[in-house]
């Protein structure tokens, strides 16, 4: 058997220094450090002279504080990173309801906007619809891009059940808005041709059941909403599709973030395949929180053997310490610790190799596990530095 392939290295510095890179999208399953990775990349890019805005969907207060902001909101706020590079850094957190409200306000006349905003159906849709966050993230990304105020936008995708929902958002919304159901609701059946009759039969079945399940009021609210919203549907779709196409351009780079664990890498694999299917440009994989032992020359097996030697050594003379002879317990303990670390490192490497075996061309960069969560810009810098150095887990 051939030795496992070494993946190409993901050179994030080259990526962020390349002025043609305009959008970086960080994606991956929940709990892998996606938001922190996005912020670290944003900071590092700003230190290299880029004008960066980081768009996060994660309301992590600590991250906001790490960037010296007491909170993040729907407006890009400047981060005081003491940059001498001529670059700049802004950060914002997506507020999906506000973003949605703003779109309604911007694209409908005041009366109609007020009508939509007050509709119970709209309120439910804008505050809790499972795909709204994904969709609004796309919308916000499009908005930020159109302002042209930043030359690099770093996006952290929503912590979806499946990270892939982000890409599905425009299509899902489109499917819903174009859906037969909506057409049935907006254009109650007219008698006439055969297929319309069929629709009509379908319509009464649908409304009948919906009334049964939801009650007549809900149906009425929904019809009112759909009618009021009607003129805006087209614009929504167009912008979503424009953002989708923007994501396919070479100025965009998708970075998949994963922890070196089987579940996270399974998701990452799936994501890589999906991006290829959608013709989205993949930058590579960030393997986050990789454990790197300090003394790699001593293998786990030899370390355990040495610990056993020392432990046996102590048994005949249990009072080793008081007798003034060297205390080997510390060395034995440290050797056991080292063995565990080596085993962990090997396991992590093995799952990473699995990924590379399936995706040999995907560049990979590793970030060493940090002893503490990020609390300040220095912490973000440390992650950026680890990301940019080729030696980690190499």
């Amino acid at each position, binding site marked *: 058997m051939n030795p496992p392939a070494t993946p190409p290295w993901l050179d994030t510095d080259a990526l962020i220094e390349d002025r043609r890179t305009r959008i970086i999208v960080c994606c991956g*399953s*929940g*709990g892998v450090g996606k938001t922190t990775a996005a912020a670290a990349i944003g900071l590092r890019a700003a230190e290299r002279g880029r004008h960066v805005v980081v768009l996060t969907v994660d309301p*992590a207060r*600590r991250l906001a504080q790490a960037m010296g902001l007491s909170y993040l909101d729907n407006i890009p706020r400047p981060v005081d990173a003491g940059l001498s590079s001529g670059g700049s850094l802004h950060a914002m957190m997506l507020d999906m309801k506000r973003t949605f409200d703003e779109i309604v306000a911007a694209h409908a006349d005041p009366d109609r906007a007020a009508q939509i905003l007050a509709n*119970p*159906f709209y*309120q*439910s849709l804008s505050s*809790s*619809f*499972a795909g709204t966050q994904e969709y609004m993230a796309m919308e916000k990304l499009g908005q930020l891009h159109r302002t042209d105020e930043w030359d690099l936008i770093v996006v952290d995708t929503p*912590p979806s059940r499946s990270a892939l929902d982000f890409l599905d958002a425009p299509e*899902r919304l489109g499917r819903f808005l174009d*859906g*037969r*159901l909506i057409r*049935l609701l907006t254009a109650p059946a007219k008698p006439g041709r055969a297929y319309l009759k069929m629709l009509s039969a*379908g319509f009464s*079945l*649908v409304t009948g*059941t*919906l009334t*049964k*399940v*939801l*009650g*007549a*009021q*809900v149906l009425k609210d929904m019809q009112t909403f759909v009618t009021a919203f009607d003129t805006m549907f087209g614009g929504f779709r167009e912008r979503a599709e424009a953002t989708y196409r923007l994501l396919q351009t070479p100025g965009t780079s998708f970075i998949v973030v994963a*922890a070196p664990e*089987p579940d*996270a890498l399974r998701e990452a694999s799936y994501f890589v395949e999906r991006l290829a299917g959608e013709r989205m440009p993949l930058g590579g994989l960030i393997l986050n929180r990789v454990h790197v*032992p*300090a*003394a790699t020359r*001593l293998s786990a097996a030899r370390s355990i053997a*040495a*610990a056993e*030697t*020392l432990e046996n050594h102590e048994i005949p003379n249990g009072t080793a310490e008081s007798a003034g002879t*060297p*205390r*080997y*317990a*510390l*060395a*034995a*303990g*440290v*050797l*056991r*610790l*080292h063995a*565990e*670390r080596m*085993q*962990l490192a090997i*396991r992590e490497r093995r799952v990473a190799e699995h990924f590379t075996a399936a995706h040999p061309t995907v560049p990979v960069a590793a970030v060493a596990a940090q*002893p503490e969560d990020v609390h300040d810009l220095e912490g973000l810098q440390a992650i950026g530095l680890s990301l940019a150095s080729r030696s980690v887990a190499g």
Partner: protein
Amino acid sequence: MRARDSDWEGVRLHVVTGKGGTGKTTVAAALALALAHDGRKVLLIEVEGRQGLARLFDCPPLPYAERKVGIGPGEEGRAGGDLYALAVDPEGALLDYLEMFYGIRHAGQALTRLGLVDFATTIAPGLSDVLRTGKATEATRRKAGGREVYDAVVMDAPPTGRIGRFLNVSVEVSGLAKVGPVRTHADTVARVIRSPQTAVHFATTLEEMPVQETLDGLAEMRELGVQLGGIFINKVYPAGLPESDLKAAAEGHVDEAEIALGLKAAGLADAQTLASGLAVELIEHARSVALQERERRELAGAGQPRYELPAITDGIDLGGLYRLAEVLREQGAA
């Protein structure tokens, strides 16, 4: 015989949430397995369509049907119980609902084709949530021959970020439907969720963000009037060394000479260099142990029962799951 009852006598619906990456599904599965003792019948429900349970129990993807996936650990000559699993999807739950309340499953299938289900899951999230929680509460209350079909139901629920909204079904739906059948259904579901029969457990690790989310989640559940459950601390690794050594190391004090002597005695070459490397590792370890300890104290402040699950280093398989179930039994979680 165990000396004491489990901490959750009387609880029949166990909702397990937690931050992504903390092992929420593993904790839910281990708890379900632990509850399936002495011939008790337990149902484990997955609601997010990830088929995480099928992977854990090493079986083909779960259909929308309650299927036996395992047998709980037997103890001292007594048989274990039966563990069933179910993957709930909103579509199946909607058809179920139509069947159960209106006897119109057939119409439901036609509606699926017309996009009603898309409608339900896409635009009416409250409805989709109430259908999923509704399935869990239905299984909890289901009776056959005068007694409950399941002794306990464990739900692998959405993560902490979404759990409040997920469980707060009656409010979610009331925004949508002030009156009507779905409202009535939601109110029934809400009553079960807020009854002493239900408890919400939190899976966490000893890291800052998951602990913070656990504390926030507990506060949110308290506000919702839902019974707080236990804190399941997952992936705990042992300290491994005496506290005094760790304490000194956390402050950067390691006797490298002492380590080097030991390494030399064990016959390892280049003991001095090796000792410096190992000292670095010890300091890192000691610091993370100290951090773990800090997070443990944070969690203790919440005042809820806590259970610690060891890190299963070779990845969770069925054997690992049984081990965790046993640990949970020993600690009184089941």
